[in-house]
């Protein structure tokens, strides 16, 4: 199938989704019990605002307009890259996000590396030795990784590596050594998911006829496994990597708190606790958009990874 119409179609639906995402994000404000204007103002003033003040505030922020119009205004600003201003400081939300982002990205990237480095060899080993003790052990190991609440794992790792062995720093951000423990904490959870996936997709692939073809050519087992099998087995893994970005962000929230890394997650938690709605909306929107865009890219990279994929098939 032609790529161009597919791209247009895919972009089209992504836009629809993004529009929906923006509506949901904006709507979060209305979840708050009570009148948003009043809540915001009482946070800002640190006291109960008067009716007049609330009225003035509404007028100032266009909150006396009908909701769709308010939304439109907000969206217009968002499209210009302006996510609003924090209620508590006059910092722009976009600026706050951009400041916090590098730490989170750094963590996410390092976690993916940890996850892949753990998952691919373990998954392959497990699949190749299907049903043996090696397989069971690595499956169990992977599952233990995914079954532990990650903050607990984080504290245990700190206990062992920072406090007992003293080889890695406890917390903080900035240096590579400070990245190791958080990346391992977040990476193991993800590695567990990926190991299982690599294993099951390797198992599927190992049953495929074309591996017999490869073996019957006289290829070495290593080449059969790592060239012919793994290449095919990685297709679903890459798809999941896109989805795992969500998991990474989920994990980052908790792990940034554990390791005192002022990234997006920490920013979000603080903002939620302070009811700093522009920041909450900004981060929510930003992560969702990042997620949609990443998955779009992942979809497109299918074509390279799996030539069979006819773009446009539902990769559900």
């Amino acid at each position, binding site marked *: 199938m032609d790529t161009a119409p597919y791209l247009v179609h895919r972009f089209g*639906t992504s836009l*629809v*989704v*993004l529009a*929906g*995402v923006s509506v*949901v994000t904006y709507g*979060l404000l209305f*979840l*708050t*019990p009570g009148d948003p204007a009043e809540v915001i103002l009482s946070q800002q003033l640190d006291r109960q605002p008067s009716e007049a003040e609330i009225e003035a505030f509404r007028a100032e922020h266009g909150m006396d307009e009908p909701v769709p119009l308010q939304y439109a205004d907000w969206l217009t600003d968002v499209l210009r890259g302006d996510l609003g201003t924090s209620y508590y400081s006059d910092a722009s939300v976009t600026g706050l996000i951009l400041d916090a982002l590098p730490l989170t990205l750094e963590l996410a990237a390092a976690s993916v590396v940890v996850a892949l480095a753990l998952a691919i060899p373990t998954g392959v080993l497990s699949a190749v030795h299907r049903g043996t003790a090696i397989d*069971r052990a690595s*499956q*169990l190991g992977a*599952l*233990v990784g*995914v*079954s*532990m*609440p*990650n*903050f*607990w794992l984080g*504290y*245990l790792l700190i*206990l062992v590596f920072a*406090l007992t062995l003293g080889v890695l720093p406890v917390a903080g951000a900035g240096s590579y050594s400070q990245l190791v423990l958080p990346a391992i904490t977040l990476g193991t959870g993800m590695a567990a*998911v990926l190991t299982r*996936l690599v294993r*099951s997709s390797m198992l*599927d692939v190992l049953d495929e006829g074309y591996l017999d073809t490869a073996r019957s050519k006289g290829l070495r087992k290593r080449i059969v496994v790592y060239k012919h099998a793994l290449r095919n087995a990685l297709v*679903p893994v890459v798809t*999941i990597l896109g*989805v*795992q*970005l*969500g*998991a990474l*962000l*989920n*994990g980052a*929230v*908790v792990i940034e*708190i554990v390791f005192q890394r002022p990234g997006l997650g920490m920013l*979000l*938690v603080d903002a*939620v*606790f302070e*009811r700093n709605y522009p920041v*909450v909306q900004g*981060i*929510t929107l930003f*992560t*969702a*958009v990042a*997620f*949609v865009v990443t998955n779009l890219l992942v979809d497109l990279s299918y074509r390279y990874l799996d030539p069979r994929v006819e773009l446009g098939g*539902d990769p*559900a």
Partner: protein
Amino acid sequence: MSVALESIASAVGRRYRALRTSRTLATFCANPLNVAGLSIVTAITIAAVIGPLVAPYDPTTQDLANRLQGPSLAHPFGTDQLGRDMLSRLLYGARLSLGIAVAVTGIRLVLGTAIGLLAGYAGGWIDEALMRLVDIQLAFPGLVLALVIAGILGPSLRNVMLALAVVGWASYARLVRGTVLATKERDFVRAARLMNVSRFRIATRHLLPNVAGPVVVLATLNMGTVILGTAGLSFIGLGAQPPTPEWGTMLADGRHHLRTAWWIANVPGVAIMCTVLGFTLLGDGLRDVLDPNHETTLEKPT
């Protein structure tokens, strides 16, 4: 009436026979991990049911004189910072944690299945609209959205459940729709259409049962994710209010004592880990049996 009873009896008999004679059980039992999963889940379920009856102490009664006691005969899992018996708290907590997981999973399942079934079966613009809705839900990282929702609504278990339910249904919808679409084109559904079978009956009798396997597998795996999600939100501070013996909250509280009284954090930690592990193993096992073609797409983590 008697006919109905008879048919129920025969259906039960059939199921039983199917279970006994088919390879299902054998397949399931062939992998010790599956059996381990089933055992863990059974144990936790029993604990949840009879826990309050067998718990040696009241889970909230404090005994400040005996705070931070290590494991002993009187307190097999020690006592916490307020001198409460960890074992009793753990047992009471089992019901709570399991209850949350069941409730959240239940809501997700019902909502997601209904939407997926409708989308897959109706097709056309209904499908298109519902699937975009699914995409929108999936676009938000689950815990992030749950955190925002629970945070705005205020900390309480009810809000946590609500938030987790809101962010998790889409995986079911997607899975169900996918299975329905695949099943819909299978010859037996086409045959049913040609036999004048009503749409409703096709949906409930031919599509749903075939969807059930993957959905049950997803739900089982989901139980674990929900428990972890609850723990994560509890850690952030949006979980149960004290003195509720909810595992995630216990673990989050206990982290301050990790060095001085390891049992306070590690006992609920291990309990959560085992439960999640149990459900995941069971889910995997069920997948071997119910969904041999691995139709279950990997669930989106929350």
